[in-house]
């Protein structure tokens, strides 16, 4: 069973079964890693925010650099109007990043490798952005689907394409993160399996591959968290500053 590269994605109950009416909301390994990631974020940033020295130490510097990094990312992509949503995007980025990074620890569980988790985040972002767009611009937000400077003959086609692309945002956002994480972890598992099956003589090649893949996966873990956050910023930008 352990040789199956998909085995690592199994969700299992930890502790007793908790039922809310008909719905099973038991504490699982996924819940455990969500809690661990959130706690890690909170602990690190709480430590970083506690000290108020003029010259920051390492943990304070980490917190402040992350703050300015996300802050700059938001102001670059969505402008100054996106400032009220800073906390949300910061939390989102840190949550996804820490979930991805904790997933890199061997025998741990990668929360973001589950489509349901990424899809929940993405659909929440999608709905929130749509609501913000309609609140800010009223029905004028529908102009998003009508790009300016398009010949009238092409307009029906373009509007349909725009609507489809808008509606596919949550899917693309969630599938991108989920597929990246799942594919990476599966591949590492497969190469790890090769190391065992090829033994001491032939196992070195997949082992070195595995080492290289670990580095790549850490990069991907950061990059996907960044992409997730920056795409959220871009969607938010569409809702806040209607360009089309």
């Amino acid at each position, binding site marked *: 069973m352990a040789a199956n590269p*998909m085995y690592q994605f199994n*969700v299992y109950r930890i502790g007793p079964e908790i039922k809310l009416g008909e719905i099973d*909301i038991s504490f699982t390994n*996924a819940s455990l890693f*969500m809690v661990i990631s959130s706690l890690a*974020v909170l602990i690190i940033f709480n430590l970083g925010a506690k000290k108020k020295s003029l010259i920051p130490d390492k943990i304070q510097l980490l917190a402040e650099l992350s703050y300015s990094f996300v802050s700059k990312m938001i102001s670059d992509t969505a402008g100054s109007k996106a400032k009220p949503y800073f906390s949300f995007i*910061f939390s989102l980025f*840190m949550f996804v990043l820490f979930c991805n990074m904790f997933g890199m620890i061997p025998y741990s569980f990668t929360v973001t490798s589950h489509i*349901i988790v990424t899809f929940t985040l993405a659909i929440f972002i999608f709905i929130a952005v749509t609501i913000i767009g309609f609140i800010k611009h009223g029905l004028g937000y529908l102009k998003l689907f009508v790009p300016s400077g398009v010949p009238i003959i092409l307009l029906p086609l373009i509007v349909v394409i725009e609507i489809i692309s808008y509606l596919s945002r949550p899917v693309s956002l969630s599938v991108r993160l989920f597929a990246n994480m799942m594919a990476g972890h599966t591949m590492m598992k497969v190469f790890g399996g090769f190391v065992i099956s090829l033994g001491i003589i032939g196992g070195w090649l997949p082992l070195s591959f595995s080492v290289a893949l670990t580095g790549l996966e850490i990069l991907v873990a950061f990059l996907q968290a960044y992409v997730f956050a920056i795409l959220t910023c871009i969607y938010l930008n569409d809702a806040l500053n209607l360009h089309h």
Partner: protein
Amino acid sequence: MLKKIIIQIFTLNFVLVTSAQSGESGGMPQLNPEFWVSQIVWLVLTFGILYIVLSKLILPKISNNLESRKSQILENIETAETQREDSEKKLKEFEKIILESKLEARNYFNEARQKILEDINNKRVALEKDIDDEISAVEQEVNNLKITSSEKIKKIAIETSSELIKQLIGEEANSSSISAIVEEQSRKSKEKQHGI
């Protein structure tokens, strides 16, 4: 509220679509809807707490720290700037003072020199005057002596010559002719003296 309802609709759809395939043990565990609701609930819970704590407690502190550091740095730069200006001003004042004192010293020196020169001049003039006076007085005396001595000599010469004539000849000589002779003799001797 709306969010939760929509999420539930979506998850229910997925449950319906994928429940048919979930029976088999192979395939992707991600598509097994057994713990989907649990994952969503725990995601909302953990992410919600994370968001609330970060946005209410931690991020304002970090932002404050950054802000206060920025203002502190600006303040420090400002004080440094004012201190620099102060020191420059002081330096200029100092240079001015040095320049003034140099000028003053030169003035004092010049004054003193002038005074001393004047003093020396005065003293020299007085001294020269004294010397001139003395010289002129001595010259006067010498002149007087010259005049009186020649008169006296003439007189003595006239007297002695008249006496001599009286004793030799026994006759009173005309004093006026004697004096004329003496005068001529003295003139001759004078000419002899100067005629070299």
